[in-house]
């Protein structure tokens, strides 16, 4: 039984489990996500995914279908509504159907697994997403990744990596991916699949073929461990963060593949020096980190960057310009963060 969490600052780590799961399932091409619950859950999430897409300069029309439960479905059970919905969605010929439960459905105890276990002519994948069980957005992401991973079987390993759990709703999702690819290219390592970002349902079958999994962020460690257990694939717990984090990332990937990383690291170090040299105008300026920039990783990597360009950082909350928040992915992420800082400091 989940208990009420402590009343801590949860805005970053809270959120709706269903939304988290949808940020994953809607990135599998030609599939439908059936949301078993009242229609508002679907409407709200459609709007959110659509609006976030627009913010990220893409038009997203996620294929969400609601079982549109009403009061009598709650009283008599919503299994019939789910069965009808799955039947009609299956007729439209998707490659797979994802079924996501909502709070009310898990409260009344609909047997979703029994309904989804019937034959619909397409794979039906259940993602548990009832938020009141204590889950967050992040749990939704993790639940979806695990449910999708369960559709794949272990394979012979190839010399490639999987990218696990990209933050599909973040503005810089493509830039961050491109930066990781650039670093992997330096080592001659290729990407097997982006699990999950704009892939086909069949691609998921390749999940077990990678030599290494690279997680987007450390919050995905339970997923990393699950994949390791299922496919024997080791993982790196995060995308590269900041200057030294980027260098150690290159080293860690190289080590897994048994490659000598010294030349790549040296090249990247030079590239970092060049990049920082372009921001010499910031030297000697005074700022502090925004107290909202709470997590240690981002404080650490941002402090390192500030030090490298000789910005004097005061204690958070002191009366000077607050910078951030920032979690700079790779050297390119550092450069974009410095551009933002420059705009703030010269404003």
């Amino acid at each position: 039984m989940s208990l009420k969490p402590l009343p801590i600052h949860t805005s970053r780590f809270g959120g709706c489990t269903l939304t988290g799961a949808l940020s994953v399932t809607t990135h599998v091409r030609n599939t439908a996500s059936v949301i078993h619950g009242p229609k508002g859950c679907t409407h709200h999430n459609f709007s959110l995914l659509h609006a976030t897409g627009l913010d990220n300069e893409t038009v997203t029309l996620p294929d969400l279908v609601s079982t549109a439960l009403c009061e009598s479905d709650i009283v008599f059970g919503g299994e019939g509504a789910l069965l009808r919905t799955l039947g009609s969605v299956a007729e439209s010929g998707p490659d797979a159907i994802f079924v996501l439960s909502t709070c009310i459905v898990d409260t009344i105890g609909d047997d979703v697994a029994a309904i989804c276990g019937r034959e619909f002519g397409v794979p039906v994948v259940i993602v548990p997403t009832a938020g009141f069980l204590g889950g967050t957005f992040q749990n939704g992401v993790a639940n979806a990744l695990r449910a999708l991973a369960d559709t794949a079987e272990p394979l012979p390993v190839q010399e490639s990596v999987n990218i696990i759990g990209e933050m599909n709703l973040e503005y810089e999702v493509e830039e961050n991916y491109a930066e990781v690819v650039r670093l992997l290219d330096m080592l001659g390592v290729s990407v097997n699949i982006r699990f999950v970002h704009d892939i086909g349902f069949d691609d998921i079958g390749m999940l077990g073929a990678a030599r290494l999994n690279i997680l987007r962020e450390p919050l995905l460690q339970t997923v990393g461990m699950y994949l390791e257990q299922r496919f024997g694939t080791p993982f790196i717990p995060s995308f590269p963060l900041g200057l030294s984090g980027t260098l150690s990332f290159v080293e860690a990937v190289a080590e897994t593949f048994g490659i000598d990383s010294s030349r790549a690291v040296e090249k990247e170090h030079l590239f970092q020096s060049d990049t920082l040299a372009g921001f010499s105008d910031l030297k000697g300026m005074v700022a502090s980190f925004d107290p909202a920039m709470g997590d240690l990783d981002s404080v650490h990597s941002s402090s390192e960057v500030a030090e490298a360009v000789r910005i004097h950082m005061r204690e958070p909350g002191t009366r000077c310009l607050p910078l951030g928040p920032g979690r700079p992915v790779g050297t390119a992420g550092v450069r974009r963060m410095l551009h933002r800082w420059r705009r703030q400091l010269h404003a």
Partner: protein
Amino acid sequence: MKQIALYGKGGIGKSTTSANLSAALSGMGLDVLQIGCDPKRDSTRMLMHGNFIPTVMDLVRVRGEAPITLSEIEFTGFNGVRCVEAGGPEPGVGCAGRGIIATFQLLEKFGALKGDVIVYDVLGDVVCGGFAMPMREGYAQDVYLVTSGELMSLYAANNICKAIQRLSSRTKSTCRLAGVICNARNQPNEEELVAEFAKRVNSSLIQYIPRDRVVQLAELNRKTVIEYEPASAQAECYRSLAMRVMENTRFTIPSPLEIDELEALAYSYI
């Protein structure tokens, strides 16, 4: 208008007691409405001469949003007692508690909650908020516990005391414990035990109903005892209950017992 609710362990005889109480009340010339709040829908069966009446939830299920009229859910049984069954889902699916809430909203909309007395006959344990609905928002003001002298039955009654205590302590609440009805299993010292239990939870034994074969005979003849054998001692018992319910003025906030106390109490009356 008097609104009373009968709560107690499943199988203890709430429906039999409710139906006979309603029949006895109607015999006093009162306009009585009995509402069965249990998906098993058999509360009013003896008043309806063995017929299962269509339930409110059945109609909602079939009609969806289409309108339902009062005449489709309210049926007149023995001696003019009006009967309603809330109904609910099949066992093991859905949410019966929400069904009770939905039924009350419908009855309210119809203006069906009228007459001299409303008797709410509620499913065994108050398993969730929905089944506490009759006690909430000014519906049933007088709550009667139906129990035998068996420990499990007293345990259930004590548990319901907790729900009444919680609900009656709310500011606008008008729900109170009105008394304990002993529907006896004819075990030794049963009346004394249940009377003492009633006292300990800050209430009183309002009626002792002995176990009598006439209840089963009446049931097999699809009638209440009041109708089947009006001259019997058992019928007199139900009439006495009806009288006491109408005259009752002692409404209390119960003080439920700890399990140890309850066991010790039952033990002392072996």
